[in-house]
């Protein structure tokens, strides 16, 4: 099965709401741009029913090069995490592969 893309999301808005192709595409792009900008400014984004995107500071920790076994520290970094909301979790829970 193929993946759902921005193009698919936009096409759905054309079909379901009757937006023009351009408006649908701009809205989909705009949505992810706004979320991304907020995260870059280290501000969390809470999408009720879907989930929360959070920005977390990770401190340095020991790591290894899996190929050579050589020890190299994983430097401190800022990462994005996603915590799915209860509604999304329960929708997905029962998915079973055929």
């Amino acid at each position, binding site marked *: *099965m*193929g*993946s*759902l*893309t*921005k193009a*698919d*999301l936009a096409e*759905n*808005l054309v079909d*379901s*709401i009757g*937006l023009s192709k351009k*408006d*649908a595409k*701009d*809205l*989909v792009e*705009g*949505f*992810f741009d*706004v*979320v*991304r*900008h*907020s*995260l*870059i*400014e*280290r*501000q*969390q*984004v*809470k*999408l*009720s*029913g*879907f*989930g929360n*995107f959070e*920005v977390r500071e990770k401190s340095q920790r020991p790591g290894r090069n899996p190929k050579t076994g050589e020890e190299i520290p994983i430097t401190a*970094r*800022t*990462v*994005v*995490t*996603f915590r*799915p909301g209860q*509604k*999304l*979790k329960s*929708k*997905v*829970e*029962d*998915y079973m*592969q055929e």
Partner: protein
Amino acid sequence: MTKSELIELLIDQQSHLPVKDVELAIKSMLDHMSASLANGERIEIRGFGSFSLHYRAPRIGRNPKTGESVELSAKYVPHFKPGKELRELVNLPDNEPNDLS
């Protein structure tokens, strides 16, 4: 930022669109994404990241109040992996949002 604040920003950006179309569009988008994941379909948003399902094996859990054992069946949980672009932008040492197009 909450969903309604996000919708407000998009209403300002797309000021030629009726407010209720923007509200409806964002809700439809999120429903569409949830439905895809519920069907086991991955979501791939270029420049942002991808969503997929991760399998959780069945296990014996405990009710933290009573200490009683409960059988938890296998399940799937939603997972988000930030894309390279988002990872790098969030990790810049001193973010100056105004420099980002």
